[in-house]
């Protein structure tokens, strides 16, 4: 059964550094999402992406964040200058055109020190 994959599983970075989180969505998915979950808190929507552009973004997704689909398989989230409060689990998700079922990846745990 196809799965969403994410790399790395855990990333430790120093405050102010740039990080790129990578996702390989399920091949027939066309809508892509990033969510995050700060430890002990709710899962929060960050951004949705369709047809090679951002569809919607939340207040969390400020100028420090960007997303890209550099090729036909990868979907990336970049944080330009990480802050301590960016420490969280980041989840990639996707769905196909006809179904609203969203499938999530296993997440990348980002720790900013």
């Amino acid at each position, binding site marked *: 059964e196809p799965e969403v994959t994410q790399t790395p599983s855990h990333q430790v970075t120093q405050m102010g550094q740039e990080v790129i989180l990578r996702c390989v969505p399920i091949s027939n998915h066309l*809508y892509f*999402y990033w*969510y995050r979950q700060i430890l002990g*808190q*709710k*899962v*929060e*929507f960050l951004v*949705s992406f*369709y047809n090679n552009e951002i*569809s*919607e973004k*939340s207040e969390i997704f400020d100028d420090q964040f960007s997303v890209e689909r550099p090729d036909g398989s990868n979907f990336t989230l970049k944080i330009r200058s990480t802050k301590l409060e960016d420490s969280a*689990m980041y*989840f990639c*998700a996707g*769905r196909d055109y006809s179904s*609203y*079922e*969203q*499938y*999530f*990846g*296993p*997440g990348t*745990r980002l720790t900013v020190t």
Partner: protein
Amino acid sequence: SQELEQSPQSLIVQEGKNLTINCTSSKTLYGLYWYKQKYGEGLIFLMMLQKGGEEKSHEKITAKLDEKKQQSSLHITASQPSHAGIYLCGADIGGSQGNLIFGKGTKLSVKP
């Protein structure tokens, strides 16, 4: 803004017992999703409900969406230790691309 309230926050049941988790929205839902999460891991898709009165089952788990599309319940029959985890309800609140908001989750423990 729309909120999702889940109850109970946590639940401990004896193996073999039935249980129900509830999810209530402050506004009409366009879609209601149930996921299971093990601590520190990803969200596993369980079911999605869209129509008022809809009910879906998978193995021993049944989810229902009420007629007004503001409340959903997740029912587990004859619970097993493998059912333990955090159950999250998520809702499509009508954003153009189907982005979801989530409840805080219900932590389920099943005692053998």
